[in-house]
């Protein structure tokens, strides 16, 4: 397979990506979330789709997302997750955090390269 070229999802970033997905697309079921991440990442990330569910539970426990049973496009029963107001705030906070950190990491890495 092409696994060797793919990167592991960084610890903790999956939560952020799911929050962002729910924020951007509105209520989604687990499968939809996995598809969206796959699509956006252009097959760069290797995602064990099962871990999406672990992440969803974590977010539920923090009250950042809510879950509800509903019916999917093809008339299947599915659990839909949506971002809560608290989740919105958390997303803003985390996004800012992420940008700051990735900026710093990026700068550090560029420094390394110049030597």
């Amino acid at each position, binding site marked *: 397979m092409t696994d060797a070229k793919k990167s592991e999802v960084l610890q903790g970033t999956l939560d952020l990506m799911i929050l962002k997905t729910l924020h951007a697309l509105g209520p989604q079921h687990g*499968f939809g979330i996995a598809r969206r991440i796959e699509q956006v990442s252009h097959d760069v990330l290797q995602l064990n789709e099962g871990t999406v569910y672990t992440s969803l539970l974590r977010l539920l426990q923090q*009250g950042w997302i809510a879950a509800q049973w509903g019916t999917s496009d093809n008339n299947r029963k*599915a659990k839909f997750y949506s971002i809560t107001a608290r989740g919105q705030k958390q997303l803003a906070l985390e996004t800012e955090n992420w940008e700051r950190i990735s900026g710093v990491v990026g700068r550090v890495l560029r420094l390394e390269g110049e030597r």
Partner: protein
Amino acid sequence: MGDPRISRLRAFVARALGLFRSRKRDSDLDEEVQAHLQLLAGRFAEQGMSREDAAAAARRQFGNTTLLQEDRRELRTLVSVEDFARDLRYALRCLGRSRAFTAVAIATLGLGIGASTAIFSVIDNVLLEPFPYKDAGRMVFPRIQDTARGEEGGRQGYTSNEFLELVEQNHVFDGVTGASEDLVLYKHGEGVEQLYGVHVTPGTFEFFGMPARYGRVMQPADYQPGAPPVFVMRHKTWMERFNGDPGVLNKSFVLNGTARTLIGIMPPRFGWFEADVLIPETPVRGASTGFAGLPATWFLLGRLKPGVSKAQAGADATVIVNHLAKINPQDYPAHFQVAVKKLGDTVVGRLEPTLYTVLAAVGLLLMIGCGNVANLMLARATSREKEFSLRAVLGAGRARLIRLLLVESMVLAIGGGALGVLIAWGGLKSIVAALPQDMIPAESVIELNAPVLVFTLVVSILTALIFGLAPALQAARRDLNDPLRDSGKGMMGGFRTGRMRDTVVVMEVAVSLTLLIGAGLLMRSFVALRELHLGLQADHVFQTRLPLPEDRYKTAAQVRGFFQPLLSRVKALPGVVDATQSTALPPYSFQGSKIEISGKAHQDEWHTLLQQVSEGYFRVLRIPFKAGRAFSETEINDSRRVAVVNEAFASAYLLGEDPIGRRVKLPQLETVADPVRDPWFEIVGVVGNVTNQGLQAPIEPEVWVPSTVTGSGAQVLMVRSQQNPMALMNDVRQAVWATDTGVPLAFPSALEDRISQSLYAGPRFAFLLMAIFGCLGLILVTVGVYSVLAYATARKTQEIGIRIALGAEHADVLRLVIRAGLRLVTAGVAVGLFVSLPLGRLIAADLSPGVKAHDPLTLAGTTLLLLVTGTLACWIPARRAARVDPMVALRYE
């Protein structure tokens, strides 16, 4: 919102809830996962895969579903709780399988925990929370202390002026009550009886927050001028004097000449001032007189406002009293401060160190128990090595193994705790019976209550940690391979754990010796106290104080007019051997005097104790004469100036001279009621020394003079009887009333009981408890030594078998095992002796002066006792070892 603590808390709550919903959630998840997999597989199938390939690819992309389940479970619920429940079930099953071990462990722990619980209940109910009153913890009383004398003593009785100033000016109390004591003469048809009364200020019962058991307490109206006189009675007095007769309620009683209605009887635990009766009084400014013509003084008890410290309250009261001292400096020390003391400080005295000593002893007992159980667990852990290794090999982490063992310990400790509560509940009754009653607050009721049970629980958990941790760590530290290979019966027999068990036994023996030495010292001390010669015979003597009404008994002649006919009446009673009058009761004399002796010049002041007695005094108390003679009846009747001195007097002031015929001047007698002018007395006799400053203080010089020389003082009646002295009480009371119906019997008792109550009860209590705990400790240690040796020899069966096969004699094997055991015991004894010497000093305060903390007899005796018991404990396993059949032992492999 980003606070990690909050998010952790949220997660915790969600997980805790998850404990109850796990089933539903698991099936929910399954559904979601199945749907996801099907959707994925559908996508792969659209891309042209076969059904099977698509399903496989979907599973691959989804990842490990089992791991996912695990992850989710760990996230969703508190894993530790689920695991704990599993550990608990396992521990119960394990312990249930080895019943003997469980029984011994729980019994051992129960003993230790039970003893601690019982003693802690006493401490809690006597020292910590003795009072049933509302907010008793904030109740304090101010005491004026002379700065020069430090914390010692001080004045806590206030004139009504001072009392009112303190009440009105203070900023620190949110409630105050005043109490003024009064000896109440209760007059009924036959005569008078004395009650101990207290006058209480308005609001007293609201202050204590206690309603009456029957009837009612005082209301504000009862304090109004002109209100009908009323009073309230203590429960104990009601039971003892009126047999709990409800008919006395609302009856009128003549108390100190005033007819008062009994309006209420207090609940049993109300014991304020230990007063029999409580009388309403509103303090007013200006001098008022209390009993015996002395100015009335008020004791002030205040409840601190919440948040006010004792120091703040003391400072506040100091300011107030300083103002008063500017007006009347003569009433106060030159430099003073007001300190506030806790309510409990009024009562609890000498019992406190004793109780803490006993608590420490119980702690030691508990330690021995822990040692035993730890050893049993270590031994068990050794035989469970394989089980643990297997668990470790299968992936159990160190923490997991430790937890498993700790849960086992916890189960044992809780079992021990439960048994301990039962033991304490039973033992408490006997402890209460042995408690010296006058050393504990009247209000305290000793029982197992919530704080005590919490204490038990905490102790149980702590013990579990103490005895469980070492075996648990030991078990978890194991090398995975070794035990699996080992047959479990090897010769080395867990060398390292062996040493640990040995250390525990050595410590146990040391602790036990410390306990025994403590018990031994207290026993020696108690025996020494009992043997201490009072110089008189206190048995078969009835005593009572006879407070004579001041108005009718002022002169010596008036007092003689009462006592002379009374003494003849009493002497004529059946069963009476002799009777006398005196100033004080042995072993104390209170009155003293400066002295001069004819023909003796001296610079320093000479002092003596002084008593006024009638002629029967020395016969009633069986005090022997060393020289001269006793007073004659004529001398008493004629108030002759004669004196008897004790040997201490003779050797202090007339050493090497003949005291008989010498004259001694007692200036004190010039100052009392109906005084003696020019009080020179001729010494006619010398008696043996009689303790006159309590049992333990050196005997002071003392002089006895005829009771008839002054009108004051001698108001104690002592009667020597043929039978039980208390049987005389009613006859004596009738004799007193036949002489004067206005005189009560005050504090009547058998002299011997009085002496032992006040002097022996404390030491006896300490010694009794220490002896019990010492014996229990010895038993536990014996079990401990036995079990360690039994276990060690059982593991060495094979080695012993080889030795016997190679020609070792029966006696050799015996010696081998006993020597191993005794090595531990002697090591423990050495450590114990080393530790006891400094510890002994801690109980030195409880010891009578003749007994030193390093009393050689006690040390030798207890050491011997421990060695003998230790040898016995070794004997049984040794005998068993010697009987090992070499063939059986070797074949066993």
